[in-house]
């Protein structure tokens, strides 16, 4: 069973803001969803996975990249060629 405090903790971990009303709603919904996921406890272990597709490798060659002004063009707050960010400490 997930409780209110668990939902608050998960929201904190996920960096998702959440209202008091939503905590109530999400607690109820998460319990229903996780109860359904409990069927995974019945999965037999040790199955071979059939076809597994592997990554394709390529040479690590230098190719043209985006001009700086385009790369930072969607940022809201810039100083010269830097993007401003909220303070960490």
């Amino acid at each position: 069973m997930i409780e209110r405090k668990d939902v608050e903790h998960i929201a904190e971990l996920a960096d998702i803001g959440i209202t008091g009303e939503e905590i109530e709603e999400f607690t109820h919904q998460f319990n229903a969803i996780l109860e359904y996921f409990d069927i995974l406890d019945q999965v037999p272990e040790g199955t071979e996975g059939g076809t597994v597709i592997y990554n394709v490798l390529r040479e690590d060659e230098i190719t043209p990249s985006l001009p700086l002004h385009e790369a930072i063009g969607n940022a809201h707050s810039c100083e010269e060629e830097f993007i401003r960010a909220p303070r960490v400490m």
Partner: protein
Amino acid sequence: MATDDPLNAFITRCHIPPSGEGRLSGLTIAVKDNISTRGVQTTCGSQILKGYVPPYDAFAVERLKAEGATIIGKTNMDEFGMGNTTENSAYGPALNPVDPTRVPGGSSGGSGAAVGAGMIPLALGTDTGGSIRCPAAFCGIVGLKPTYGRVSRYGLIAYANSLEQIGPMARTVGEVSLLMSVISAYDPRDSTAQSRPFDHTPSSDVGGCRIGVVEEFFGEGVDHRVASTVFSAIERLEELGAEIVSCSMPSMRYALAAYYTTCMSEASSNLARYDGIRYGLASDDRKQWHHAFQEERQQGFGKEVRRRIMLGTFALSTGYYGKYYVKAQMARANVRADFARLFSDVDLLAGPTMPTTAFHLGEKSDPLSSYLADILTVPANLAGVPAISVPCGTVERLPVGLQLMGRHFEDERVVDAAFAFERVVS
């Protein structure tokens, strides 16, 4: 909702001219709004990306332009692809062209609605757990989820990388095949893309093709009228020379839970990039990082996206990783093994695309009941196999889709069977 878009199929209208001439010259196309278009707003149906203008084109968009297509809009979708109705779009739901009191399906519902209504002949969608096939079935059009790795995901804004593919949607199988041949080419910028071009002209010969009918695809929750419509379609394929075989996929029991655990986990990681700093809604840079971050994500993401990020974070957290994520990967291996076993005996698998016809707007307000509607489409994504939805009749005037799934990289065979069926019923 614009007056020239009564179905709210588009988030942004545009006019992106072709860059060359080719197989799509003279044709217009719409592109789902999670596929990057240089210079044209790309929102993923989310408030958090409102105003975001990609500085580059997705590979599939480069291919469309090079082959002569004119892109006329970015289509409505469930936010980041999370949903099967388009009701999770921050820009309002798209409507079903057959019955506007119903949803067009999702998450590529805007593409489905625009093609179904005849506004455009072709559209690109993306399919993570059925998001091309569901709207194709609900809107009465054709939609193909290609084999994983057959179409480059470069420029597709990620939701669940191990499951999703860009694919074609159109009114006919021939057009779907044409569009697939345009977008399926090798691209070194996607490390999961294989060099397996789709260079194919559909053939209607299904003689000798063995088609497995999976009993679980007609089980609990599947509307009996939908089931009987699909059974009749499979009989038509038998009349055309296909051999029909009954079979079973026991891993279907776990498929939906495996799918949702996997996509939520991947989403929780992928969507961590939306911090309002490099793009998206502006975060307040006077505030402490986490406060600014949490506030921006609360305002910018809708409820379903926040639910999935939180459940994914939970499934990957210490103490629960083994119970949820690891088990989901074991279940996924079971699904892949079931497909491999069945495809050693049959060439294709057939069943309904969706368990019901299109829902009424507002009908799926509870998240779990909405998830359950994906049960027939998620297995193909878990295994990475190709799957097509082709219209096969109606129930109370609402379209029903026949789903055909094939072996890895046998998209051509899937297209051919759908083409044969389409020819005999049209």
